[in-house]
């Protein structure tokens, strides 16, 4: 398992008596971006949130999710006590949400968000501003000093997404999970945000880092991810290098997704998605 930042095996999540994730195995290698692809409601976000202990109340989780902490130390995210998990969130695992503007507290400034996050993980008071500004710059924001003083309502959608990104990356986590982060952005901003994410995994100091890109957009997955894992019916139905998966999909759902996403491909049959095997019940 060397080189894996996170190794998930047999993840099962039950919510309200319904098994939504059913025996999911997934390995996130260091230095690589992995896309978790699936249709709406296939359990992509629930999978990602379960790993951080952020699944909805009453969700039952089982299985194993080993996070590599470096130096031969690992921690099982599904077995870790709440306090340990809290300390890992933000520091070792960064999570960027879809609704960027709504994921910022309207009553405090961008700078207060950053300082608070850095402070929660032990960064001394005197160094928080400097680290916060660096995080904003690292997320591709010009004029970080002005943004540091800004309130969330003063930000554009793209700026808000980059601020959310800066927050999640502020402590240089080993694993960054991006949950549909670009769905609401224009193509240029989308590319900018994804480039930042991609650079984290592949960058010179990124050898020990991994990116999980949760998306329903195969075009995004194909362009920015090294590997693609297709989720359907609560388990991974196909996984492999992005290029190979897109060029020669083996699972019918993957094939349908590729056809639906491909600009040159034929339009999918109306009944195709309903009939794909392993459809969510």
């Amino acid at each position, binding site marked *: 398992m060397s080189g894996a930042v996170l190794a998930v095996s047999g993840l099962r999540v039950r919510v309200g008596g319904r098994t939504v994730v059913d025996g999911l195995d997934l390995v996130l290698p260091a230095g690589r971006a992995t896309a978790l692809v699936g249709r709406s409601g296939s359990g992509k976000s629930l999978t990602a949130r379960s790993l951080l202990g952020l699944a909805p109340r009453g969700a039952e989780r089982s299985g194993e999710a080993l996070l590599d902490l470096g130096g031969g130390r690992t921690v099982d995210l599904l077995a870790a006590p709440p306090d340990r998990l809290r300390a890992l969130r*933000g520091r070792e695992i960064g999570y960027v949400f879809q609704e960027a503007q709504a994921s910022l*507290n309207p009553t405090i400034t961008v700078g207060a968000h950053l300082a*608070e996050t850095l402070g929660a993980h032990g960064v001394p008071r005197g160094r928080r501003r400097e680290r916060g500004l660096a995080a904003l710059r690292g997320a591709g924001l010009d004029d970080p000093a002005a943004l540091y003083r800004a309130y969330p309502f003063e930000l554009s959608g793209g700026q808000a997404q980059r601020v959310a990104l800066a927050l999640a990356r502020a402590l240089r986590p080993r694993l960054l999970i991006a949950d549909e982060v670009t769905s609401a952005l224009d193509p240029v901003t989308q590319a900018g945000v994804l480039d930042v994410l991609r650079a984290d995994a592949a960058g010179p100091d990124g050898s020990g880092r991994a990116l999980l890109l949760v998306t329903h957009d195969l075009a995004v997955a194909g362009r920015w991810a090294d590997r693609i894992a297709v989720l359907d019916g609560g388990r991974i139905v196909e996984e492999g290098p992005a290029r190979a998966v897109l060029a020669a999909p083996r699972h019918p759902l993957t094939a349908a997704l590729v056809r639906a996403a491909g600009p040159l491909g034929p339009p999918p049959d109306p009944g195709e998605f309903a009939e794909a095997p392993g459809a969510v019940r």
Partner: protein
Amino acid sequence: MDRQVIGAEAAEAAAEGGGAGVPPRPGAPAPWTARLPPRVPGGRAGAAVALGVLGAMALSALLAPVLAGHDPVATDTSATALPPGSPGHPLGTDQLGRDLLARMLYGARYSLAVGVAASAATVLLGTAVGALAAVAPRWLDTAVARTADALLALPMILVALTLAAVAGPSPATVVAAITVTGWMPVALIARAEVKALRGRPFVRAARSLGLTRTRIFLRHLVPNALPPIAAVAAFEVGHAVLTESTLSFLGVGIPPNTPSWGNMLTDARALLLTGQWYTVALPSAAIVLLIVAVNAVATGLERRGAGEGRTW
């Protein structure tokens, strides 16, 4: 602007219903618009005027020693029961010859101070109890909510009266009685608001960043729950002033002889039918004016919130 809209609607309704009997003539101002009652104070202008009234009241209470010209508790047997406009006593004197202007001004000090202190305590206690209940284990949350419901169903004046009677008359007792009987609406609003906020993306994001529960509660949940509480807080001031007057009138509030608007009413109670109407009218008018002003400000706050897209 609002008036015009209302007028237009009334005109439409009249035209459609046909019950008004007068067909509207195009171009002519509809005569029945003038018959609509004027809007109650509560718009922006209303709130500004009300704020001015409150400011003036607070200022005259502060400057009571300068403005009064008389000792509010000094009796003067040579000048009893003087009507308003008497030389040296602009508002007249009571049965014991105490200057009514001085008593009104000093009374404002007690009534306003008790009102502000009691409503502040009410809002603080209510917010703390409600917000904590919202994040507490379910059984505790349910217990708090049901307790608040049960207390709301009790006749509050009875509870306040009992408390005040047991503890003896003093301003502190009045504040305590008002707080104990007034925290429930604030708590229920704070609880509902914090519960709703817990599902908001920014709270989830704060958790994903590894912030502690305490920090999320204090920095992310409570501050965002404050706007609706602020609107209720203003109403609580009115409630507190009214309760203070009631308790003082019943003899268990501010100690007798101390000038407060409620005590002035107690003293004047016997004079209602003897022609000295002003001894009752002055403190009553002050209380009514204060409560109307406070409620107008509260309504103004509420509307400003509503303009920001909040719906409470």
